[in-house]
Structure formats: C-alpha cells, structure tokens
C-alpha cells in the first residue's frame, strides 16, 4: 500500500543537520496494523512524519499505490493523520471537529460525521464543546475525525498515550476495525503488549535504523528487544496470548 524505499531524513534545524533516519525500507500494507516501536529518540515520530509527507527526505522515496504521493492534495485525500499533540485551538463542537476530517474533499457530509461519531461511541457529545470532555472522550472524538473520510491510510503518533487501560483497548479495537475494513494503519506505540496483541507487523527502530521488522511473534523476542531497550524481558503465555514482562 504505502512503500518507503531507502528513506533517510535529517533534523529540521539547518545549522546542526544530523541524520535521524538511515536508509529505511518498509511497507504499510492495506488491512494491516503496522506498529512502529523503539526507545525514545529512535526516530519513530520522524518515520511516521516522513510517511505522512511532513518530514522532508534527504534520500529515498515514498510511493502510495495508485497515486502521486508528492502531490499535497492527493496525499490529503488518501491519508488521515493524528499528531502526538492533540491540541485544538478553539472550543469547537465535537461534530465540527469530526467534520474537519472531510476538509480535503471540499464538502461537509453530516451523514458521514454522524456515522463516525457513532462508530467511536461519542454520539452523545456531538454538540458539546471539545474542551468540556475528558482526555479519553476527547481521544475518541479525534479518532472519529480520523475515521470520518474512510481514508485508505491512517497514521497515528502515540494515540494511546495518557489513556487508561479501557481507553487504550477501545482505541486499538477501533484501529483493528479500520484495518479489517481495508485501511493501512501505521501507529507509533510504546506499549509493546498492546502492539503484540493488535498489530500485524512491527517496525523496530533504534537510533534511526530499522533493526528488525516482521510479525510481532518474530520481532518481540527477548533477544531482539533487550539490546535495543537495555532491559531484560520475560515472555509469559496466558492462553493463546503472549505478554512481554520487563524484569524489575
């Protein structure tokens, strides 16, 4: 679906230009959730920003199946992006916030907005100003904004940060649903167990280098993770599921 070929990127500051991503090649496949994991400063957000067309590339190329990724408008119509910092400048109603997801298409469709609000279980907040909601409720409204246009590519930067367990699980179920409907989902995550449980593909980064990629079962092994996170992990099996437990 979205393919990155030998992508490298530099820091935005021109005076201290430093390479953040080195020669990364990967794919975000339709119908799959791809987790981008790694320690702080590994380049996860930069990789996501590069995939979204926000970080200029110093080398390599990005291709989206069937369209010109370099065209700003085409990109906007094929991508829905959720930033790490989900601030909104004005106390807009939740309905208006969700409708902003339709801006690249140049029309406002109330049916689509209502459906997205219902899909994320926030219909009851439709007319409430966004600043009157709790963090968890607000993140569901932002998810509705992300899903409203049924974009084929969804990219999210740490969407589960500051959410409680129920909130994080609910959000991952929404992403799973979007992927099952055919979207390619790329998501930066710190919770390895959530990634293990919900994702189909994992990109493991360290210092801007793609150290491993593949199915969670193949990447999330103590031998792969320990040198990268500098922490020892135990793998616990509970029923069919596996959990990574860092050694205290």
């Amino acid at each position, binding site marked *: 679906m979205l393919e990155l070929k030998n992508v490298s990127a530099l820091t935005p500051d021109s005076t201290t230009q430093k390479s953040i991503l080195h020669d990364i090649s990967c794919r975000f496949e339709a119908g799959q959730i791809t987790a981008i994991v790694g320690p702080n400063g590994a380049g996860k957000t930069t990789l996501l*920003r590069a995939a*979204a*067309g*926000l970080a200029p590339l110093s080398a390599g190329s990005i291709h989206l199946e069937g369209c010109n990724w370099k065209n*700003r*408008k085409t*990109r*906007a*119509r094929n*991508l*829905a*992006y*959720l*930033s790490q*910092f989900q*601030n*909104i*400048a*004005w*106390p*807009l*109603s939740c309905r*208006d*916030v969700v409708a*902003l*997801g339709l*801006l*690249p298409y140049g029309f*406002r469709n109330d049916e689509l907005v209502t459906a997205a609000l219902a899909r994320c279980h926030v219909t009851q907040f439709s007319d409430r*100003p*966004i*600043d009157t909601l709790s963090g968890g409720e607000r993140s569901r409204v932002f998810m509705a*904004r992300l899903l409203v246009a049924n974009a084929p590519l969804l990219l999210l930067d740490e969407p589960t940060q500051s959410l409680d367990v129920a909130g994080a699980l609910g959000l991952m179920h929404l992403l799973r649903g979007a992927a099952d409907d055919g979207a390619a989902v790329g998501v930066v995550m710190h919770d390895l167990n959530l990634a293990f449980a919900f994702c189909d593909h994992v990109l493991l980064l360290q210092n801007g280098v793609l150290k491993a990629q593949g199915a969670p079962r193949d990447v999330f092994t103590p031998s792969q993770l320990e040198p990268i996170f500098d922490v020892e992990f135990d793998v616990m099996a509970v029923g069919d599921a596996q959990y990574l437990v860092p050694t205290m």
Partner: protein
Amino acid sequence: MKKTIKLNFTLAALLLFIGTVSLMVGDVATSPAALVDWLAGVGSEFHVILFETIRAPRIVLAALTGFVLGLSGAAIQGFLRNPLAEPGILGASNGAALGAVMAIYLGLASTVSYWVPLAAAVMALASVAVLMAVAGVGASSLRLILAGFAVSAFAGAGIALALNLSPNYFAALEIAFWLLGAVENRSWLHVSLALPGAVFGCLLMLSTARSLNALALGEEVAQTLGLNLRNLRARIAIGLALAIGAVVSVTGVIGFVGLVAPHLVRPYCGHMPSRSLLPSALLGAILLVLADTAIRAIPTVMELKLGVLTAFFGVPLLLLLLRRPGTLGGEA
C-alpha cells in the same frame, strides 16, 4: 451553517439601520422627514450638503474601517490560534501611522489633502515588504510575530522621533491628534483612497477561511489535510497589511475593535474560524459606526476622537469577556 447566514443577515441589517439613524445625529438636528426627502432626491441644498458631503462619507468610512478591523482581528486570531492577537501585530498599523506622521511633519498635509493617506498606504506596504524580507515568506508564525513586533516597534520609534523633533506645538498636536484616530472631516475622496486596498486585502483574508479551520487542529495536522502553510502565511500577511494600511492611512490608529469584535461573535458561530470572519467584520463596522454616532451625540467643546472612545468602551468590554468562562476560546 444556517445559523451563521442568519447571524450575517441580522448584523448586516443592523448595520444598515444604525448607519441610517446615524445620518440624523450631530450638532445640527435633522428630522427623519429631511432624511427621507434626501433619500428620495428632493432634499434641500442644505440637507444634501449635510448628509451627502459631511455625514455619509464619515459613516461609510467608519463602517469600512470597522469592517476591516473586525475581519483582520478574526483572521489574525484564527491564523495565530491566539485570542489575544490584534490586527496591528504584524506592524502594518504602525507602519501606516509612521507614513502619515512623516507627511504631516513635512508639512505635506496642508498642501494636498491626499498626501497623508498616500504616504500612510505606501509605508504600510513598505512595512510588509520589510517584514517579508526579514522573516521570509515561509517563516514560522513565531518568527512572523517577532519580525512584525520589530517592524512595529521601529515605526513607533519613528513616530516618537517625529513628535520629538516637531518644529512647534501645533505640529506636534496635529500629529498626536491624527494618531488618536478619527473619521471627522473625511470626504468621499478618503473613502475612495481606502477602498481598493481594503477590498483587495479583505478578499485575500476571506479566501483563507477553510485553511483557518484546518489550522485549528495545529500546523502539522492541518498540512496533512492539504493546507499549504507558506501560501496561507503570505495571504494573511499581505491581506492584513493592505487592508489595515488602507484604513489606517485615512482614519489613524483605532484600537480594540479588531481585538474585541471576534470575541463577541465567536460563541454565536460555534467558534469556527471560517464562520466568524464575516460576522466579526460586520460587528466591527457596527461598533465603529456606533462609536462615531456617539461622538457626534456627546456634547463636547472639542469633538472626541474615535480611537479614544473605542479604547474607553473596548477595555471594559474586554474585561467583561474575560469574566465569562469559555468566551475567549484557545483553552481547549
């Protein structure tokens, strides 16, 4: 959407009503019958001069200035995502004022009546040219604000220098009075001088409506929604300079309308930046026409300046707004 259209129509009708009533207010009392006669084209010569030459231009100019200030305030607040931004933030207002002050200082005001507005308009454009040269077209919002602040402060220093070096008290007083902002003794010539820049600047600002909505989600997300940030910054900076420069050049510096008008209408537009542009402009026009009418109605030895009255009423209004939770926005 329907709510916003209704609000725009209501404000436009109110502006028309207040503007018409305002024609009858002043030192010379006039009856509605005289106004109707003039509108029907059968008024006396005295009333034609009074309405057509003296009162109508200043009312139209007050409305135009208020419209520009209200729209500019809503546009710059939406662009910077900051409810405290005001139209003069990018330096065009002080730039225009410096141009006018220079013309007055050099004694050009008394020779040809349009030297002052012409000098002001040129300086407003020059200030934006300097702003763009210093900050660059693709500058970040923060860089743009700081460069605007520098341009504004430099123009302020120039005004202070002109006052400091003015050859006599009368010249200094003329400069000081001009800076207070007024629409008295303005003719249709002044309206026609301000109109092209104001119209073009307003159109540029109105064209940013959808982009301002996207920007509510932050610069990064807005860009993924298709926003061209460089293009938006250029349209806002040039639009603001043209429109503000055009009106300041004929009226002087009038504060608070651009800051307060967007805050007053925003709760009725669901706080959406695009929906608050036109209502802010119309309310700005209403506020300035009301202020000018009040100036003519208040019996003072020397007519009050418009900028003085807007500041006197604007500050308490702003303080009242601050007491109402959720009115200001920008807290989400």
